[in-house]
């Protein structure tokens, strides 16, 4: 089963990389961009058929390693 | 997978960068049509980068020997003996084209490659330097290229853990389409524990170490592979990506393995990866090599023999191991989490055999692959002599002070703090002299010895007179090492030129080498390693001839090394060397009058040696409190830098007589130094006795630099001019289009 984890900085945390990208988009003429937040994407392939279990496992992975919950939030999507 | 047995068409040969007569040479050599893998192997071995086919004939005559040279050109890096059982291993190499295409990864992998060259020989890298040349600041890509290259160098060196302590950084419109990224690395090892590439012993295992092989940087195959397997995006050659983390592990694992006594021979997989490294190990040891590609650790699925042989994936090594120590070696690599695979054996038939999937993909004579590479004596014409420009023909500025501020804030002469603060230059805790001085000084272990290291060349001199320019590049490296109190020992050269198939470019190359050679002989400063980068040309316009010289010297006691900062008020300032006010090809003329013509200042090597030895003696005897060599921008720039660095002003009351003031202040006569002393009588009398021109031109003090015409510039203004340009330019705050 395929899963995607998206990790971004919490909205309360300043994201200087996102800011820089935002500025760069504006200077390229994309006026409609109101804000940019950047983050990381992890594509996982996990064994088994149990979606609920997979989701719980992946959330544990996020808590333990993939995200630093002091500053980051995460989202888990399971394909199919 | 790409088929191995396909008809070799003239198009295919051309796509591999081989000329029809070169292909004929291959047919004559092996007596049959090559397989695709074999064609790839030939294209890698016979390209300019590996075979030096255009330059080899001229490199042969270079001075490469001295009693202290342990290893000259031809190995991964050069090695010199510095006494106490220690040796210095160093080399400089270009990564110009990849850095132009992808500045961050290009520069990063350039750093990685040169660091590997050094630790492959058994040395732990203790310093890195970079000589960088970018296009006109007004060129739309320049800012992007700088920011990528600097970040890439920082990314790699900082994580690897080597201090980046110096280098060069310049601009010129002739680099608009071809930037230069020349990376130098310096390492230290015991002089009895140096490792070489030559394999010994038949039947010894050849071991692959490091990262896995992917389809990175496969050159000749670019278009060819599309024809074989069209629509396969995954097979497109990619930019090489550097992994400093893997390299750091490779360093530690290699040094641990070497210390264990199991390494017979070792070779970095650099350009043309597995092909070049395996062939060199065999050929240098008069042995054959048989590779079984099924054992090569790969990162991507279904790689063909052709791709594996030409991949330029980074952070990989090839070793010949003592078979009795195989298990120990494997344990070390497993501990460091690196791939370790036996991919072949040495043989006694002098053949290079490549097997894949049980099939023989290539069988070639191993010695001939290198020895029989084409060798060209390309036609060349000497560069016409540039006219000597009299100082009186170069207009004086309305204000000497304003001209000084303009020069200090010009792209080439301004402070490069914005660059070097992105490099970790303090790691290892031995950086005695940080970036910004004449030469970097790095202590060796706990001292008292240290190394003085510098990179130098003045491309506009080389353009106007290759011979004098070549001499000057070597002389300036020698002078920079001398100015910190070092004994210059040897150089590495990175020869960057345009298209060698044009006689005038080849003439620049030949001229520069002649000058370099003369200077190396006269200054006992042999060449122990180097790299040639040709075809730096876009739309028929070549770069300025840029033979970068990386010099290394020894400082016997780093506590006695000299720095350029003024130390105290009230110290007399002495100018060493003869001043004629040479403004031809000077920075003054280029910046103030936008003209770069004219003969560059001549280099008198005997004078250079005499003046330098005198200054080095003063430093050794503690007679000089601050020392700076004179180069771009002349005396005025040197004094300003000393004032800025020491935060102390100076009153300049006298200049050499009979010369217009602007020529005396901004002229670029060679073999000169400026120094401060607390014992001027002794310095002047010793100079007279040694036949060295010396003139007291003023003294330190106050918080302004006062010129002989009475014009006074606050040191804070000098500093502001010096420090402002680059950060403003890089932030985009500076509108360069109106410059």
């Amino acid at each position, binding site marked *: 089963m395929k899963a995607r984890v998206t990790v971004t*900085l919490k909205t*309360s*945390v*300043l994201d*200087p*990389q996102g800011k*820089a990208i935002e500025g760069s988009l504006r200077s390229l003429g994309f006026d409609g961009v109101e804000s940019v937040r950047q983050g990381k994407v992890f594509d996982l392939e996990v064994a088994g058929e149990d979606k609920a279990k997979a989701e719980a496992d992946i959330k544990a992975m996020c808590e*333990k*390693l*993939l995200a*630093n919950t*002091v*500053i980051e939030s995460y989202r888990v999507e399971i394909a199919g | 997978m790409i088929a191995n047995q396909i008809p070799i068409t003239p198009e295919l040969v051309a796509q591999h960068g081989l000329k029809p007569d070169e292909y004929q040479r291959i047919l004559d050599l092996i007596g049959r049509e090559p397989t695709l893998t074999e064609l790839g192997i030939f294209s890698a071995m016979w390209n300019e980068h590996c075979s030096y086919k255009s330059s080899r004939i001229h490199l042969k005559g270079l001075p490469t020997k001295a009693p202290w040279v342990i290893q000259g050109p031809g190995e991964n890096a050069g090695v010199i003996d510095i006494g106490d059982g220690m040796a210095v291993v160093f080399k400089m190499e270009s990564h110009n084209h990849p850095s132009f295409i992808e500045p961050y990864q290009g520069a990063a992998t350039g750093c990685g490659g040169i660091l590997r060259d050094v630790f492959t020989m058994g040395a732990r890298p203790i310093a890195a330097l970079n000589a960088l040349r970018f296009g006109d600041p007004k060129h739309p890509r320049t800012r992007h290229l700088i920011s990528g290259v600097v*970040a890439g160098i*920082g*990314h790699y060196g*900082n*994580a*690897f*853990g080597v201090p980046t302590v110096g280098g060069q950084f310049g601009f010129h419109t002739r680099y608009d389409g071809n930037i230069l990224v020349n990376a130098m690395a310096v390492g230290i090892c015991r002089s009895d524990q140096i490792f070489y590439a030559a394999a010994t012993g038949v039947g010894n295992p050849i071991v692959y170490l490091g990262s896995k092989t992917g389809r990175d940087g496969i050159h000749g195959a670019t278009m060819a592979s599309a024809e074989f397997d069209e629509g396969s995006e995954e097979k497109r050659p990619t930019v090489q990506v550097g*992994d*400093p*983390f*893997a390299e*750091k*592990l490779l360093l530690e694992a290699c040094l641990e393995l070497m210390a264990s006594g199991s390494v017979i021979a070792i070779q970095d997989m650099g350009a043309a990866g597995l092909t070049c490294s395996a062939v060199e190990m065999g050929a240098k040891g008069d042995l054959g090599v048989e590779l079984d590609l099924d054992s090569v650790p790969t990162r991507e699925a279904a790689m063909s023999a052709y791709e594996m042989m030409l991949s330029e994936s980074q952070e990989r090594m090839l070793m010949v191991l003592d078979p009795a120590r195989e298990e120990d070696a494997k344990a070390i690599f497993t*501990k*460091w*989490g690196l791939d370790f695979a036996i991919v072949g054996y040495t043989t006694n038939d002098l053949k290079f055999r490549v097997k894949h999937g049980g099939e023989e993909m290539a069988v070639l004579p191993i010695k001939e692959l290198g020895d029989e590479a084409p060798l060209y004596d390309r036609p060349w014409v000497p560069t016409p002599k540039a006219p000597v420009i009299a100082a009186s023909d170069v207009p004086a500025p309305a204000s000497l002070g304003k001209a000084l501020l303009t020069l200090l804030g010009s792209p080439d002469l301004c402070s490069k703090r914005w660059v*070097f*603060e*992105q*490099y*970790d*230059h*303090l*790691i*290892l*805790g*031995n*950086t*005695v002299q940080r970036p910004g001085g004449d030469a970097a000084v790095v*202590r060796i272990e706990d*001292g008292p010895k240290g190394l003085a290291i510098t990179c130098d060349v003045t491309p506009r001199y080389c353009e106007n007179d290759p011979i004098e320019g070549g001499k000057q590049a070597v002389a300036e490296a020698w002078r920079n090492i001398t100015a910190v109190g070092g004994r210059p020992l040897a150089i590495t050269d990175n020869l960057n030129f345009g298209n060698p198939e044009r006689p005038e470019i080849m003439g620049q190359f030949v001229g520069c080498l002649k000058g370099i050679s003369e200077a190396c002989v006269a200054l006992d400063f042999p060449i122990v390693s180097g790299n040639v980068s040709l075809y730096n040309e876009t739309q028929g316009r070549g770069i300025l001839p840029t033979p970068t010289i990386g010099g290394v010297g020894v400082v016997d006691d*780093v*506590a006695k090394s000299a720095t350029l900062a003024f130390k105290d008020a009230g110290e007399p300032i002495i100018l060493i060397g003869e001043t004629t006010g040479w403004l031809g090809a000077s920075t003054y003329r280029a910046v103030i009058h936008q003209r770069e013509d004219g003969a560059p200042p001549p280099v008198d090597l005997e004078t250079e040696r005499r003046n330098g030895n005198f200054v080095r003696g003063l430093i050794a005897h503690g007679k000089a409190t601050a020392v700076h060599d004179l180069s771009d921008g002349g005396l005025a720039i040197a004094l300003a830098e000393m004032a800025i660095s020491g935060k102390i002003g100076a009153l300049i009351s006298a200049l050499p007589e009979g010369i217009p003031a602007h020529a005396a202040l901004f002229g670029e006569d060679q073999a000169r130094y400026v120094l401060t002393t607390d014992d001027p009588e002794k310095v002047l009398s010793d100079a007279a006795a040694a036949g060295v021109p010396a003139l007291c031109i003023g003294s330190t003090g106050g918080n302004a630099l006062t010129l002989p015409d009475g014009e006074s510039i606050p040191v804070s203004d000098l500093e502001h001019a010096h420090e402002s340009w680059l950060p403003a330019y890089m932030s985009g705050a500076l509108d360069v289009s109106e410059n």
Partner: protein
Amino acid sequence: MKSAVILFPGSNRERDAARALKAATGRESEIIWHGETALPDGTDIVVLPGGFSYGDYLRCGAIAARSPVMEAVRAHANRGGLVLGICNGFQILVESGLLPGALLRNSHLKFVCRMQHLKVERVGTPFTRDYRQGQVVEVAVAHGDGNYLADPETLARIEGEGLVAFRYCDASGNHLEGSPNGSMNAIAGVYSEKLNVLGMMPHPENLIDPLVGGTDGLGLFTSIAGGARAA
């Protein structure tokens, strides 16, 4: 005085740290591989050195913080043993939860290496007994991710309990806002509640020799050595 320096894959200032410890204590440090599960008996202080552990590829210090040896380091800290994390070591300490807060990318997005003044905010700890309160010292910084951040409650607690060890300042001791990395309240180093764990971004271990920039960093290591002798 027994010191252990932890070596993670990608650490690169472990020799610098060991050298400073030796200069202050006269004894060689033990270099401990990250895969070990125990510290040598009688270890007084554990140092997590600078570098790019595991390439800093997930987040700085994140993977190292979860390596086997860190359980032993945590136990050592819980027993009241001294732990010093420098640069990447500081990042590992915040990732492992031994220190509060987080270290983000420098606000100007560039790696910064330069000499930097620091103000000693708290003396009398095992790490600062050889410094004076409010003393301004000059050491090196060399990092790309040193931008200290904590949520408002945590920040208030750190400040309220006097757990800020060092702040970035100018030569006269005025705190720098935004420089060199954008840290909140110019925080350069923080203590654990019991003051036995210190994390800091700057590199005192590179400033132990008058020939190489000065000796302002040595006080931290002599403090540690003196404390261990007194104990």
